[in-house]
């Protein structure tokens, strides 16, 4: 394989790797453990934590391997194209993922809840829940999870929106700096982006604690509680992943891995950060404001 990278017509065939199976086991433990933890099995916590450490181990190993191969010049134009195709499919799956959860929110909010409240021919209201007065947000006619309050948009959600938008501004400045070849500015504004990202996560954790302890808004608070925590929770996981990837990219910038013309790693992660930012904007608009 040593000579293959000089020939643009030959495809670089990677050696065998164990990282995909390590990643699969890690995700299985992380999510399976978390699901059991939420359902009251104490061992779930440990399985979930094991999954998290395995996942971080995989990121360290897999990222490192790809970076070393890239620096060694193994990747020709065909590999470059396949990286970009990989990014496209990854984003497609991400869009579908969030579309499903936003879809669930819209379906519940604009169709199911009004039906239960007597919209249409009123049959569902009369047969299933007579006297149910449909409002949004709601935990449904069964009052699942007990009375709750929503988190007011004017407080931490707005602050978090401003934090994420600021991080969008700083990463755009970093992006312009990279294109202009201004290394110092690139490193500074990329660092600020990471800092803003982790600050957002801190406030989000605080908001969750307030929701559970003061508003009685939990994952079990009917359809509003479950859609609220699924959407904001998965978004938070994406911010976490984005911040980790930005940190890796920061060290790569420090080591001078990117140039004005060759910086797909930077551009893909920067775009991902913008994507996560837009998802939040949608969340803020449709969950908190509109």
């Amino acid at each position, binding site marked *: 394989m040593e000579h293959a990278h000089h020939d643009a017509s030959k495809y670089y065939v990677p050696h065998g790797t164990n990282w995909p199976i390590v990643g699969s086991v890690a995700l299985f433990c992380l999510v399976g453990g978390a699901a059991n933890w939420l359902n009251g099995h104490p061992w779930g916590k440990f399985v979930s934590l094991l999954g998290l450490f395995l996942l971080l181990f995989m990121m360290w190993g897999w990222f490192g391997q790809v970076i070393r191969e890239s620096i060694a010049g193994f990747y020709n134009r065909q590999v*470059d194209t396949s990286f*970009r195709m990989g*990014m*496209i499919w990854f*984003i497609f799956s991400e869009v579908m993922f969030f579309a499903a959860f936003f879809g669930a929110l819209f379906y519940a909010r604009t169709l199911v809840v009004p039906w239960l409240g007597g919209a249409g021919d009123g049959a569902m209201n009369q047969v299933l829940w007579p006297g*149910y*007065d449909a*409002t*949004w*947000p*709601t*935990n449904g*006619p069964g*009052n699942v999870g*007990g*009375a*709750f*309050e*929503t988190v*007011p*948009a*004017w407080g931490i959600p*707005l602050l978090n*929106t*401003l934090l994420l*938008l600021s991080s*969008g*501004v700083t990463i*755009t400045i970093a*992006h*312009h700096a990279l*294109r202009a070849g201004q290394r110092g500015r690139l490193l500074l504004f990329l660092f600020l982006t990471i800092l803003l990202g982790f600050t957002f996560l801190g406030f989000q954790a605080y908001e969750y604690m307030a929701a559970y302890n003061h508003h009685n808004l939990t994952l079990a608070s009917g359809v*509003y509680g479950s859609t609220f925590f699924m959407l904001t929770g998965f978004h938070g996981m994406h911010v976490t992943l984005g911040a980790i990837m930005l940190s890796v990219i920061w060290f790569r910038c420090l080591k001078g891995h990117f140039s004005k*013309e*060759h*910086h*797909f790693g930077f*551009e*893909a992660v*920067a*775009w991902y950060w*913008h*994507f996560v*930012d*837009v998802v939040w*904007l*949608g969340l*803020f*608009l449709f969950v*908190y*404001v*509109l």
Partner: protein
Amino acid sequence: MALQKLLIVVVFLAVVYNLGAALYYMMSDKGQSDRTVNSLTWRIGLSVGLILVICLMIWLGLINPHGIVVGH
């Protein structure tokens, strides 16, 4: 109320459009042009503008975010 909400949704769609355009330019230009970063600049500029307008609308009482309600 409907008009304010329509305005918010239209600007949000413009944000999504610019994000999509940036993805397209990232794939087609392969880092050789400024089209990606320019689209992303539009997308963040519009987003910041949108949030500022929303803050102003809430401030002026033109839209009402979800109040503290619920649990019948």
